[in-house]
């Protein structure tokens, strides 16, 4: 029995973000807001201006002579191992020694009295190198015989060859899908303070403090126990701060130890965008066989990715693209292969969805191809191919889909958004409108939850109750705006049955919880919430024993309720109870731990259960395009998303809305463009366009599927929410495609590449009008 009536901020309530008041008053401290100690120095990176070259020498004499410069760091100054590869492939030096592998690659760092002095001095280096031919995209890389940056993956089930021979219909096509810059409003930043012996403390903005700690130790050549990494909050992460902060932490820490002064490094926006990785661009080749009603019989898919010069996280990212190349659809016979191509570009990295969106959009393109080929509404083709019961429930990686709720979810959205009726109205509108054309699409998403690197699915937490009854909560996850700290505190408040204000949420630090996983893969609450609950349960068990012994009651007579503890007929305020427990020498602190059950994955075989469960969602978007200019706007969007039993509907809806708009940006305005020399020309918000307040859909209806409950024993039966709704943005892309298709009577699949910038829309309109 739980009585939440008089307890504030427990699970499943719309609790405000724990930092909300600080956010609105400007008092929330980000890393750049921490006051610097006296004598602090500033670092800035010097970078290459060619994409591929043999490095002969770097003359830094003019840099050293510049005003305010204290010194420089090159590869020779790395005391430990000159490598920050997060997967241990030894392919990513802090600073290179013999070759330049992309335009904008960090080659050295300047350390100066001010950031401005360091930044100006960095321009003075003389780089002597022999320029080599370069390959910027995955196809150019394949043609030039470039290697994979990491081992590719193949997923295979059934036999595609016979199906291709006998199927009545077959379509082959290619789709290019662009990358995406994270454009977190807070860029990369690290600030290192040297300590005694080998010690160093690094304040930074990373999603993965443990990895930053291990990397700093690795480059300093000291044990991990000498390095502390602290993160209070980030100004956005989105995956861009999972591995990419390692470089900045390493540079700040090396400099701090070398000069024995605090050192801060914060690149400007241009350098942040050119020197750190982004979402992977993909070129996807598909070959699909299907029957007369549009049911897929076989699929052969090839996914080539622009990985950049090193592996970074490209292995698991390209794996996840294959894991999601089915999206919501059953493929009776399937073969999917990844091609993680090395390119002379910045090393691409994690970004919300982690390759999944690139897989999902390929599946949706295939559905679209079939719809236009068979003259059907794409929604009918989607439904015909949904995972079903036995015989139609096995994924290409041999995991059975046990929790599918898409039939209900999609039907509900179809009704609430009045999809069928509006589609008819739009077709009628287009018939009478020569210039402006509308489109509508309803797309589903199914997203697998768990790190595919099974060992990452673990978490720790540390809970103290001080003898005044106040609670200190720490866990291994990091706060980047998603409200993780709030949700975990709600779980603790619920378990102790105390007001959430009693709980102090503290910065993430490697000193309190070791060996944490990145706050990534949407897993933050699933993992850390469970770990915190484990800690609470341990303390509660001791408190129950104490009450049983002290007051002679049965264990089930000890109840935590409404800021009180009941021991039989005796009732104590929580504070007073804790004080007594302390005096009786009860341990009021516990380290909690959690590991996700049931999951396993054999990558060599391409078989297993990589995901604990799936999250689902659906989106319906309507757009209008101008066929003379290619410009467009989103008229209306309806979202229905599954978060299981929501721990905090206000925060979860925020994630759904934000993810949708970010996904829409990926597929519409956000274009990464490198020139022929390999220089990124969309290098700042001046040239790289994320959605604005004015781009929000004119009508925007967002709902959670409040009837959904996770069938697995996740924290309070909730589901992860960070990444899955990102793919709801695909509805905008598909709606644009329908609007384009209208100019040729909906008989030709427009084969839009992503992002569908106004330029691409106009080109597609022109191509279709010219007959394909």
């Amino acid at each position: 029995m739980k009585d939440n009536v008089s307890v504030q901020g427990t699970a499943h309530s719309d609790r405000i973000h724990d930092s909300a008041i600080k956010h609105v008053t400007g008092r929330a401290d980000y890393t750049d807001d921490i006051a610097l100690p006296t004598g602090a120095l500033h670092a800035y990176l010097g970078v290459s201006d060619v994409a591929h070259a043999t490095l002969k020498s770097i003359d830094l004499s003019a840099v050293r002579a510049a005003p305010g410069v204290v010194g420089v760091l090159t590869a020779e100054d790395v005391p430990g191992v000159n490598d920050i590869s997060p997967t241990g492939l030894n392919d990513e030096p802090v600073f290179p020694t013999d070759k330049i592998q992309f335009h904008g690659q960090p080659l050295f760092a300047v350390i100066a009295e001010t950031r401005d002095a360091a930044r100006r001095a960095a321009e003075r280096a003389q780089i002597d190198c022999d320029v080599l031919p370069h390959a910027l995209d995955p196809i150019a890389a394949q043609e030039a015989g470039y290697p994979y940056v990491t081992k590719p993956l193949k997923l295979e089930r059934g036999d595609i060859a016979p199906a291709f021979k006998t199927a009545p219909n077959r379509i082959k096509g290619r789709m290019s899908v662009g990358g995406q810059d994270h454009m977190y409003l807070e860029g990369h930043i690290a600030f290192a303070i040297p300590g005694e012996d080998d010690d160093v403390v690094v304040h930074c903005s990373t999603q993965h403090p443990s990895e930053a700690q291990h990397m700093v130790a690795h480059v300093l050549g000291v044990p991990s126990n000498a390095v502390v990494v602290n993160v209070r909050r980030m100004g956005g992460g989105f995956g861009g701060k999972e591995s990419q902060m390692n470089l900045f932490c390493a540079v700040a820490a090396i400099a701090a130890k070398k000069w024995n002064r605090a050192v801060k490094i914060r690149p400007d926006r241009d350098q942040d965008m050119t020197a750190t990785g982004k979402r992977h661009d993909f070129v996807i080749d598909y070959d699909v066989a299907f029957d007369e009603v549009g049911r897929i019989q076989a699929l052969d898919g090839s996914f080539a990715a622009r990985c950049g010069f090193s592996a970074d996280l490209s292995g698991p990212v390209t794996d996840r693209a294959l894991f999601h190349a089915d999206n919501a659809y059953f493929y009776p016979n399937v073969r999917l292969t990844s091609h993680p191509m090395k390119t002379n570009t910045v090393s691409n990295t994690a970004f919300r969805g982690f390759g999944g969106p690139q897989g999902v959009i390929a599946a949706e393109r295939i559905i679209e191809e079939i719809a236009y080929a068979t003259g059907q509404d794409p929604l009918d083709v989607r439904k015909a191919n949904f995972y079903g019961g036995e015989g139609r429930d096995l994924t290409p990686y041999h995991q059975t889909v046990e929790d599918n709720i898409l039939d209900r979810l999609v039907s509900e959205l179809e009704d609430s958004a009045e999809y069928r009726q509006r589609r008819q109205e739009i077709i009628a509108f287009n018939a009478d409108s020569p210039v402006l054309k509308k489109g509508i699409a309803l797309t589903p998403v199914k997203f697998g939850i768990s790190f595919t690197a099974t060992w990452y699915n673990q978490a720790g937490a540390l809970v103290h109750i001080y003898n005044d009854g106040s609670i200190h909560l720490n866990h291994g996850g990091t706060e980047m705006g998603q409200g993780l700290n709030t949700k975990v505190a709600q779980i603790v408040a619920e378990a102790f049955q105390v007001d959430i204000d009693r709980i102090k949420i503290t910065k993430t630090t490697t000193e309190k919880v070791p060996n944490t996983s990145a706050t990534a893969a949407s897993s933050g609450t699933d993992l850390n919430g469970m770990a915190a609950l484990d800690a609470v349960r341990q303390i509660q068990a001791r408190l129950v024993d104490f009450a049983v012994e002290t007051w002679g009651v049965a264990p089930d007579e000890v109840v935590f309720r409404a800021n009180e503890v009941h021991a039989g007929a005796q009732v104590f305020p929580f504070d007073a109870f804790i004080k007594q427990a302390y005096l009786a020498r009860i341990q009021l602190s516990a380290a909690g731990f959690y590991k996700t059950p049931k999951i396993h994955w054999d990558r060599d075989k391409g078989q297993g259960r990589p995901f604990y469960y799936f999250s689902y969602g659906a989106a319906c978007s309507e757009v209008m395009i101008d066929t003379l200019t290619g410009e467009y706007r989103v008229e209306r969007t309806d979202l229905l998303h599954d978060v299981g039993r929501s721990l905090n509907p206000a925060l979860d809806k925020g994630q759904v809305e934000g993810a949708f708009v970010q996904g829409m940006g990926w597929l519409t305005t956000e274009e990464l463009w490198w020139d022929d020399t390999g220089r990124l020309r969309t290098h700042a918000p001046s040239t790289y366009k994320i959605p604005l307040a004015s781009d929000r859909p004119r009508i925007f209806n967002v709902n959670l599927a409040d009837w959904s409950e996770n069938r697995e024993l996740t924290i309070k039966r909730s589901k992860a929410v960070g990444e899955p709704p990102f793919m709801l943005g695909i509805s905008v892309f598909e709606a644009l495609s329908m609007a384009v298709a209208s100019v040729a009577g909906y008989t030709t699949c427009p084969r839009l590449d992503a992002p569908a910038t106004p330029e691409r829309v106009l080109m597609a309109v022109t191509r279709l009008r010219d007959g394909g």
Partner: protein
Amino acid sequence: MSKLHVSTTVNGDSVEFLCDPRETLLDCLRDKLNLTGAKEGCGTGDCGACSVTVDGRLVCSCLMLGVEADGKDIATVEGMAEGEELHPLQQKFIEYAALQCGICTPGVLVAAKALLEKNPDPTEEEARYWLAGNLCRCTGYDKIIRAVMDTAADMREAS
């Protein structure tokens, strides 16, 4: 380069500081006056995270020099609340959960306040285009716009 003496008013308080004539107002606010509410998102006036008002006019403080603040009246997010009493916009942003990571929030609030002072009854379209100069990567803007529109309605009713 020798430093210049600047006398200005920030959030109603007279302040003085010395600065290099090349330093931006943003850096002066953050590094000399310890007002870190305004953030550097891009440094080129494209993101609005550093928004402040100067004599009531909305500006990106990264595009203005510190020395140009001399004799002016600067308002930042730190001046929005009266002590612990939040400005109605701040209250609505919390109520609507119109923030996530929070780093764009100070700039958005300063810009929204400037909008409502100029136009107490904006249409939703006007509010959206006014705030188009403030990038937010987390929220998708919907809750921000609804919070601004609701605040405007409340403030009109109260006045």
